[in-house]
Every structure is written in structure tokens, then in C-alpha cells.
């Protein structure tokens, strides 16, 4: 087991395009880090550079204390689970798992012992003498993991390991992976485009966009305190609502109402550290004039006013809006609220939607998604009194997309 350290890691192709741009990332010994982002963001390329299947154009890759830039994959002592499992079709499950050990010239009785042990952990004992073609998707997945764990490598690398499984199995295997990683405590780097996997499995998540790391943090912090519009839009389901806003002092004007920002938000807004931290010089203008901002509100931070108790009402904004459409899911309810004025930031949001591989879910349609309690009595096509928790408001610079005020990390 070992830490993995990346300094200025860059992948540049012959035509000059850069798939990965100067990535700095420290993965601690035993840590579970997930690389997440839309397709084409460079996450798989980065993983393949760690394992040595892609050349590193620039930068330094360390595993433990060793610089491994010029080492062949076989000399890096890493184990990888491929998206399509890459099981050797001509070998049995037992031989598949023994394959790396045989190459490493491990004594035969030791191989048997380790394979049996891994098979037990993965509940594969009955299938040891079968060929991969005769296994179900979940079993193949386990064999691929078995091949990784028998080696006791410096780190496990996973490349979208669950994307070929159906939804039910995916949830099972997700817990399985978490269990095994905990059991062995091996450093793990895991690539996925599925934010649920990222949020549930990782110690820390690195969000990538076009080869650049946008933010590395714990799942909780990514959700509560996204550093920029991209992370805000990527993490959370349904996505965060992004609406244009006008900020005068601590007074925020939204298309559907006005709110005075609570102290905890306002303080952060004026705090020079935040301004510096986000590297945006425009933030200094906050106190004096009026400025345009992009306001981020998660669907779950709305509520039916009738269901909000008195003391909470004061810390939020109350507004009345039409409800176009309702989706009642039993445990919760999604209400779609039209609003006007979204054109102001349509361009930024359109670009963001493009980056996120989404079609039209952000921007274009000027409607808010609000997640309300299932007991709410709001009606489709009627006006309703709603409340939004102003303490959970996110503010972003329309130009740079950087967060201006992040809610406190809880």
C-alpha cells in the first residue's frame, strides 16, 4: 500500500490537444479517491496514466516514494479493474485470479491459499473452475476484483467498474466494493461518471472538467460548498437551480422575490479570505454598488410554506408562485415553478449544460425544481405559497463561475 502523488500531470496528444492539464493530486495511503466528471473530462486518461497504460507528457507521478513516470505497468505493482472486467476468456476463474501471482512467481501453495481466500471473501468458491463466459455480470465483476485483491498491490484502480451492470446489481456491488476496500484498507482510485457512486463510496472526490480538476473534497463538502458553478451543477440530483440575481449590499433580488441574506451568508460574502480564495477581484465591489450574480438553490432547500414552522420562516424567503407540474414520488414531491428573467444568464448556463453533457436541463427552460415534503397539498396549475431556506443559498460570479458565498460547511 502506498500514497499516490501527482504533480503537474499533463496528457498532451501529438496534435497538441490536452486531455489532462497539469493535475496536482495527493492521494493518501489507504484513501479511497474517486475521479468523477462528464465523459471526455480526462478522468479515465488520468487513471490510465497512474497505472502506466498512457504515457505521461509532463509532470511527476509518484507511488509511495518512487517516481514511476517511466515504469512499465508491470513494474508499478498496481491492480486494475477494467470497465469490461477484462477477464481472460480462456482461463477459469481460479486461473484468472492466479494469473498475476503466477507471473510474479509466487509459490504454488501460496497461490492456492490466496486464491481460496479471495474466493471466500467474494463468495466465488463454487465458481472457481468455471470460465468467465459462464458467469453472470455480477460474478464477473467479483472475479475482476478477486484478481486485484489476491496480489495485495500498492493500490486498486477501478475504471467505471459498475457501468455494465443493471441498476439493482450496481447498488449491491457498490456496497461490496466499499466493504472490500474497508477490509483491506488499500489505497483506491476509482473512476466513474455516476455521482451517486462518487458520493457514497469516496473519502474524497475529485471533480474533473476538460482535463482540469475543479475541486477535490469530501462528498459532504462538495455538496454543501461547491467551489464553482460546474461542481454545483454536477453534484446533486436533481441539479441545483441556477437563477440570475442582483445583489445590493446584502439584499438579493431574485426573479421571484427579494431576500435579505442571513448573516452567515453575508459575512462570508464580505470576508476578504473568501474573495481572495476564489481569486475574483470583482468581489470587492460588493459593499458599494449593485452587481449581477448567479444564485444557486438546491431543490431540497425549498418547502411548502404551510409545512414550515414559525421560527424557520424568518430565516428564509417566502414567495408565491404558480406551479406548472407536480411529480409525486411517495417519499417526496417535485414541483416545477415557471419564472421569467432567466434569459440574463442563459448563455453561461447553456455553456455549463454543454460541459455537463446535459441537454437543456439547465438554462433554456426557465423553471425551478423544488423538492417538497410528500404531504404538501400544493396543486398543479395553481398558485402556491413557498419558502426557500436563505441560509443555504449559493452565489456565483457570472463571469468566472467561482463561488462568491458558500454556505458553511456542516
Amino acid at each position, binding site marked *: 500500500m502506498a500514497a499516490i502523488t501527482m504533480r503537474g500531470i*499533463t496528457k*498532451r*496528444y*501529438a496534435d*497538441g490537444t490536452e486531455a489532462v492539464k497539469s493535475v496536482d493530486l495527493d492521494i493518501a495511503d489507504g484513501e479511497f479517491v474517486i475521479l468523477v466528471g462528464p465523459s471526455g473530462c480526462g478522468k479515465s486518461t488520468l487513471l490510465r496514466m497512474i497505472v502506466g497504460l498512457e*504515457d505521461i*507528457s*509532463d509532470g511527476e507521478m509518484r507511488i509511495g516514494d518512487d517516481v514511476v513516470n517511466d515504469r512499465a505497468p508491470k513494474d508499478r505493482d498496481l491492480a486494475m479493474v477494467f470497465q469490461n472486467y477484462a477477464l481472460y476468456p480462456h482461463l477459469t476463474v481460479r486461473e484468472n485470479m492466479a494469473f498475476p501471482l503466477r507471473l510474479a512467481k509466487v509459490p504454488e501453495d501460496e497461490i492456492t491459499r490466496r486464491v481460496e481466500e479471495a474466493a471466500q471473501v467474494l463468495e466465488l468458491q463454487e465458481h472457481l473452475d468455471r470460465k468467465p463466459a459462464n458467469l453472470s455480470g455480477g460474478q464477473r465483476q467479483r472475479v475482476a476484483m478477486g484478481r486485484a485483491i489476491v496480489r495485495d498491490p500498492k493500490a486498486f484502480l477501478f475504471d467505471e467498474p459498475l457501468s455494465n451492470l443493471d441498476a439493482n446489481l450496481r447498488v449491491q456491488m457498490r456496497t461490496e466494493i466499499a466493504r472490500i476496500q474497508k477490509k483491506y484498507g488499500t489505497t483506491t482510485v476509482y473512476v466513474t461518471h455516476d455521482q451517486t457512486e462518487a458520493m457514497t463510496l469516496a473519502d474524497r472526490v475529485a471533480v474533473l472538467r476538460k482535463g482540469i480538476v475543479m475541486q477535490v473534497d469530501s462528498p459532504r463538502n462538495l455538496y454543501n460548498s461547491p467551489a464553482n458553478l460546474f461542481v454545483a451543477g454536477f453534484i446533486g440530483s436533481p441539479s441545483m437551480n441556477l437563477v440570475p440575481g442582483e445583489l445590493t449590499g446584502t439584499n438579493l433580488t431574485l426573479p421571484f422575490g427579494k431576500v435579505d441574506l442571513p448573516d452567515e451568508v453575508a459575512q462570508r460574502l464580505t470576508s476578504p479570505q473568501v474573495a481572495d480564495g476564489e481569486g475574483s477581484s470583482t468581489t470587492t465591489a460588493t459593499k458599494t454598488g449593485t452587481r449581477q450574480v448567479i444564485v444557486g438553490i438546491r431543490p431540497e432547500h425549498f418547502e411548502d410554506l404551510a409545512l414550515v414552522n414559525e421560527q424557520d420562516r424568518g430565516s428564509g424567503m417566502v414567495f408565491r408562485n404558480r406551479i406548472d407540474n407536480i411529480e409525486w414520488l411517495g417519499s417526496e414531491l417535485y414541483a416545477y415553478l415557471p419564472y421569467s428573467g432567466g434569459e440574463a444568464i442563459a448563455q453561461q448556463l447553456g455553456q455549463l449544460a454543454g460541459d455537463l453533457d446535459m441537454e437543456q436541463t439547465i438554462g433554456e427552460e426557465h423553471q425551478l425544481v423544488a423538492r417538497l415534503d410528500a404531504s404538501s397539498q400544493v396543486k398543479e396549475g395553481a398558485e402556491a405559497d413557498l419558502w426557500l431556506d436563505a441560509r443555504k443559498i449559493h452565489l456565483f460570479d457570472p463571469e468566472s463561475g467561482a463561488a462568491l458565498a458558500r454556505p458553511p460547511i456542516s
Partner: protein
Amino acid sequence: MTATTTQAPADKKPSGGPRKTTDRAQAERRLGIKLAAPAAIIMLLVTAYPILYAVYLSLFRYDLRVPEENAFVGLDNYILILSSGIWWQSVFATALITVVSVAIELVIGLAFALVMHRAVFGRRTVRTSILIPYGIITVIAAFAFRFAVQPDTGFIGDLNPLGGPVGSFATIILTEVWKTTPFMSLLLLAGLATVPEELQEAAKVDGATAWQRLWKITLPNMKGAILVALLFRALDAFRIFDTVYVQTAGQFNTQTISGLGYNALITRVNLGLGSAISILLFLMIIAIAFLFVKGFKTNLGAVKGDR
């Protein structure tokens, strides 16, 4: 913006990055060329060289029986051939055999392919037995049919089809069809397998009969496979030699172009004239291939597999 991006790599010290990737690609190219070279060279040597030599020979009076009369004659050999009735007779015979046998093969081959596609019972047996004609030596097949129809060895009485032109052509075509329909039907079967079952089901729901489904769904969707099979078989049939040699030896106007070329080259060792005949056949084969590719817009991408 564009300017900065293009400049950026140049500005930076020419780091190992881009060069490394190019190195890898270049090593791959070199290895690819090295591995492919032996095959390419041998193919060129055993085909391109003899073909060019044949073109050269075809411009000479070059008869091994009278070597002292060898001389450059320009296009005289070609003129002689193209103005000869025997040549046109052989072109007609070849074309007749090709068109009729390929047409029959298409119909039977399609029927066989449909049976093989649908057959639940004895799937293996069918596919195995259909490979038998394919595996049998053409000369043997030609003998089998000759013996079967000849009065002194056969099973059909005193008919003796090989005693006249119509029967001769019929026997030759029958043999060709028997021997090569399996190949056609296997190609068509592969094409059938690419037509999604959902389309059939959708058409069923839309109220199409089995016949309508065949004509309106299946066949249009396997057009590529049909054209490829036709092309392969037409080119193959046009060079027919073995069957005719064994069954009629060219009697009753059944002599084909390959047979004519063989007689001139090997039997009469007239290499000049024979080469001219073989070059003409070569050009006709190219023309047929060209017509298929351009005229029918055969998707050779499908033939080539990828790229």
C-alpha cells in the same frame, strides 16, 4: 485565442510530451509495416509481376512451337482475338453460365439461408451438410454430375444431356449451382442475422404477412449482403474453368474464356495470343467489379470490415 493555443507548445521548451506520443505512434507504424511487408511483397511478386509479364508477352508474336518467328507485333494479338468468332462465342458462353448460375444461386441460396435462419431443429446438421458441396473438389463435383447424366454410368436413362449444347450448358450450370450455392447461402445467412428481430416483430404488429415481411423488411435491410454475395460469386463464376474442362472440354460452344486462354497458353503454347486472351479476361473481371461497386453502390465498407 487560436494563435495562443498553437503557439503554446512552441513557446514551452520542446518537452518530451508530444514527441513521446509520436514516438509510440511511429514505433507502431514501423512494426505494422514490418509485419505486413512479407505478405505484401509475396503477393506483389506472384501476381503483379506475372501480370505485367503477361501484358508484355501479349504484345509479341510468341509461340514456343516456332520460337524463331517471335517478334513484337503491338496490338495485333488483341485485334486478332476481338475479330474472332471463337472469342465472342466464349464470352457468350462465360456470360451465360455466370448470369444463369448466379441468378439461380441467389434464389436457392436465399431460400436455404432463410431455412437455416429459422430452423430450430437440426440446425447443426443443416449447416454441416451445406458445407459438403463447398468442401468437395470442383473437378470431383464435375465428374459426379457427368457420371450421373451419362447413359453408360448414370441414373437418368438414355437422355445423355452432354451430347448437345442445351444439355451441356444445363449440366455445367447445375454443377456450378450445386457446388457454390452453399457459399452464397452462408453469406446471405450472415446478412440475415444482421436484420434485427425487432423489425420483424414490429412489422408483424403492423399487420404484414410473412411474404410482405420478406420483401419489405428483410430483403431491403440485407441489400448490402446480397450485393456482396452477388459480386463475389459473379467474379468467381466468370473465371469458370474446371467444370467445363471435365464435362464437355469446350464442346458444343461451351468453351469459356478461361478455357480458351488455357488452350492457347498450355495446349498450343502460344504465349503471345494466350496472354492477350488472359489480359482481356482480367480487364473484364475488373470491369465487372467496377460496375458492381459504382453501379450498384455496393458498400465495400461492409466487405472491408472496418475503415
